[in-house]
Structure formats: C-alpha cells, structure tokens
C-alpha cells in the first residue's frame, strides 16, 4: 500500500480481529456440557428409547395429537373472535357495553384455567338442562340434558376458548389503540361507516401489533391443552397417561408426548414468522428507507403543474 491517496484508489479494510479468549473458553464449556448431556440421555437405559420409538406413531398417540390440534385451533379461533368482540365493546362509548366486557376479562383472567375446565365439565351440577325459550322462567322450545351436551371435548373447548378470549381481548385492544387516531379521521372523512373504518383501516393496521402476541398465545395454547387431561379430554397427554397406566412406561410416554409437543410448537413458530412478515406490508425499516432515498430514481420530480398559473 502506498501512503499517498490518489483519487479513485480503493482502500479495503482487511483488519485482524482481536482475540477474545474468554468467549472461546465459554463456547468450549457450553459445547462440552451439550455433549455430556446428549451422552447421558442416549446411554441411559431407563429411558427405553426402543419404547419411545415404538409409540411415536402409535394409533392412540396420533389420535390424541389430532385432538390436541383440534382443541388448539378451535379454541384460538373462538378465543380470537371473542377477543375482538370484547375489545370493540371495551372501546365503545356505552358504559354498559364497556362494563360487560370489563367483567368478562376480569372474571376469566382472575380465576385459574384448571378451575374453569373442571367447572365446565361439571356444569350439569348447576344447570341440569339447557333450553331455548324465553328467559326468566318463560316457556321452553327445546331442551337438552347437560350431561349429554357436555362431553370432555366440549367442556375443554368451552374452558379454553372463553379463557383465551379474555386474554385476546387485551391484546386486540392494545392493537386497536396503537393505530394513529388520524387514520380513523381520514377514513371517516371519506364517508366510511364505523364498521368499515374498523374492518378496512383500523384492524388491518392493528394486526401488526396483534399478530406477534397472538402467535405466542397459539404456541402457548398447544401446551395448555394438556391441562384438559384433568377432565380426560382425550388429547395427547391424556392418551399418553392412559397408555403408561397400562404399561408403566411413564417416562417413555411423557417423552413421546413431549416430542410431539416440540414438533407442533416448532411448526407453529415457523408459521408465526411468515404471518408476521405478511403483516409488515407497508412498513419499511430504516435500511430500506435509506436505500429508497439514495436510489437512482428521482426522489423528487418536478412539480406536476403543466401550465404556469
């Protein structure tokens, strides 16, 4: 390299990185720990890897897996709908609607899910029959026995969805509030109705704020469904428990269930990543903003007026 700087001469940076012995040491310790952990798990004879492999694709396990997926998807969908409804009510001008929504989130966030699940399963003790008719003791048109309607699956769905709705309400409300009030004004100035403003302008923008925590709720829900085992909900954990009560392979069956939970949550995490990217539309990060400003396209065009006024 010559010391004088002639115009147009490139000066590449090929610097030597500083040595960081502490970091190397930490990495070596972490690697050693992982190898030791894997070794103890693999050679441990009490884990019964042959049993785990044999039961991974067992028909009963796959059936339980399917129930877990159904419970998760359905309770999230119903929970999201309830959450949007509760959030819109919460933001209403009417105090009764606001109060109803507040009571809902207060009660269902304030009591344990486990209690709610057992309660829904035993609702027949409080309301032996469900009927369609006039309220406050009026005539009934159709009537069902509670014990016939409330199966473990419907009880699980009720408990999970209603509980989820209370949490989703807060997430949706935060999302709606994050939208600039000017957006609402611009939409109203175009003559949009309240419903159109919400559907076309506010909710799509709130989504950007709503999606990441909703993804977390979904992943959390995949695992929360295991609570349904207290009412014998026939999902993954219940099935695994039933099997180990017969063959006493407790740890192996829990490993089978855990492997499937990990598969589900991993798939959900990847899905979350793509959904988030989809709703980033129109939001430009600083790097691309700089690229836009420095792009060879004219950033400023001449004023559009054709004739001088």
């Amino acid at each position, binding site marked *: 390299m010559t010391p004088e700087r002639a115009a147009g001469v490139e000066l590449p940076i090929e610097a030597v990185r500083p040595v960081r012995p502490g970091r190397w040491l930490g990495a070596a310790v972490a690697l050693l720990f992982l190898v030791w952990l894997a070794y103890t798990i693999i050679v441990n004879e009490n884990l019964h890897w042959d049993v785990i492999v044999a039961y991974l694709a067992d028909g009963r396990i796959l059936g339980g897996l399917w129930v877990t997926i159904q419970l998760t998807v359905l309770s999230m969908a119903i929970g999201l709908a309830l959450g949007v409804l509760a959030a819109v009510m919460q933001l209403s001008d009417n105090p009764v609607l606001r109060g109803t929504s507040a009571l809902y989130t207060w009660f269902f966030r304030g009591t344990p899910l486990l209690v709610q699940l057992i309660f829904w399963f035993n609702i027949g003790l409080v309301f032996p029959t469900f009927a369609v008719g006039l309220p406050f003791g009026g005539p009934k048109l159709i009537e069902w026995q509670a014990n016939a309607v409330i199966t473990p699956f419907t009880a699980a769905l009720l408990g999970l969805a209603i509980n989820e709705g209370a949490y989703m309400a807060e997430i949706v409300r935060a999302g709606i509030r994050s939208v600039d009030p000017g957006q609402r004004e611009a939409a109203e100035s175009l003559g949009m109705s309240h419903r159109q403003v919400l559907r076309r302008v506010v909710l799509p923008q709130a989504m950007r704020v709503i999606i990441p925590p909703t993804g977390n709720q979904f992943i959390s829900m995949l695992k929360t469904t295991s609570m349904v085992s207290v009412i014998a909900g026939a999902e993954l954990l219940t099935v695994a428990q039933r099997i180990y009560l017969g063959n006493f392979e407790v740890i192996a069956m829990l490993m089978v269930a855990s492997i499937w939970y990990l598969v589900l949550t991993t798939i959900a995490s990847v899905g979350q990543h793509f959904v988030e990217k989809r709703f980033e539309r129109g939001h430009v990060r600083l790097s691309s903003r700089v690229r836009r400003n420095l792009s060879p396209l004219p950033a400023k065009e001449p*004023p559009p007026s054709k004739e001088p006024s």
Partner: protein
Amino acid sequence: MSAPDQPMVRIRSVRKRFGSLEVLKGIDLDVPAGEVVCVVGPSGSGKSTLLRCVNRLESIDSGRIWVNGELMGYAERGGRLHALRPHELSRQRRGIGMVFQRFHLFPHRTAIENVMEGPVTVLGTPAAQARRQAEELLERVGLADRAHHYPSQLSGGQQQRVAIARSLAMRPSLMLFDEPTSALDPELVQEVLAVMRDLAATGMTMMVVTHEMNFAREVGDQLVFMDDGVVVERGDPREVLAAPRHERLRAFLGQVQ
C-alpha cells in the same frame, strides 16, 4: 340539491369549547361555490378546529353549519334539531374532501389502493373502474409512476399529493385543507401547492388553513384572519395582505413573513 345563489359553506354563530377552553367564539363565514377561502392565524386561534367542524370531525356547541345547503350533523324536524345517525353523517361527509397536515395515508395500502379505497368501500364502485379513475387522479397529481409504492416509500410531498388524489376520488363538492404543507420539508412545499393551484383552477370550492401567504395572495378569493376564536379581519387577500387594518394581523404577518 343547492340553489345556485347560496354559498357552498355557510357558517353562522358557531361556538366550540374543549372543556373550559372556548376555541371558537361565534364564527360567521360564507364560502361561495367555486371560491378559495384561505384561513390564516396564529396557532391556537381555532382555524383548524373550525375546519374540522365543517366536516364534523368535531361537534359544535352552538350555531349552524350548512354545506351545499344541508345542515351538518342535524336534521330539523318539527322545529327541533335531531342529531343525525352515524350513517347519515357518513353520507354528508362523502361530499367533503379533507386533507390533513400529516397526510394520514393508509400505510398498509399502496398509493393507488389508497385512492381506490373510498370509491370501492363507500360508493361500491367496481374495482376496475375505481382503478382507472385512480390512475387518472395519480396522473393529475404527477405520481403515475409511484402508483404501487407504499406511503412509507414516498416523500412527504408525494404522500400529500396522494392524499389529495384520495380525497378527489370521492368527487367532493368541497375540499378542506388543514395546513397541508406545514409538515413538509421546505423544498417539497411547492409541489403540493402546485397541485392545489391546479385544483383551484378547475373551479373547486376550497377552504385552506395555511401559513403560505403567497399561496393565499395568488390563489385565494377571500382571506380570513382568525385570532383567539374570532374572525378578526377578512377580505380580498391582495388588499388585506397589502394593507392590514388590525394591529393583530400586522403583528402576525410580521412573524410569518
């Protein structure tokens, strides 16, 4: 709808308070059809609030506002005022375009989708027809080549021109501009004023809250100076700006020029 001799906007004895602060203290103002009225005044004078009352983004506490012969926000039946239902209010707002200081484009939609949004959602215009119309409007504001850019990919001046096109897509009979160039970098102000100048030349009725005295002088048919919730002075912009009668206007002009 409206008789030819009546003004596009008629404002009578309008008062508005926010809590204990009275921001409009009895405003009377007429905007004849086809004219450009520029409203100027120091910040806090109530000029933006007045504009927002015209399309009822703000309600008023007393007085009457008619746009195109229609009483805004109320229906008079049997000698009593009845507050309009939300959908009737929305219908009144359709005919009034509003351009904001901070643009308020829909960030999740491209420029052309922003312009199409009103006709498609509110008027039920078929998408293909709305697209053609939006292309024409973007051409008119000089942004045909930016149709598929998101607002975040546009400069402030370009965003404001898209916002004007978005309002025009509703074929309004009145356009309201709330300090349309105040949030812009100085070199971007002229491109927006040029679009507004073109629009005035087509005979659009406009109410413009602005600090651009040159624009008021060149394009305005009427200049209204507000201070502390009242109209202090009004008249032909060239005469008013050349020879202000009130001390408050002289002080204000000394500050902005």
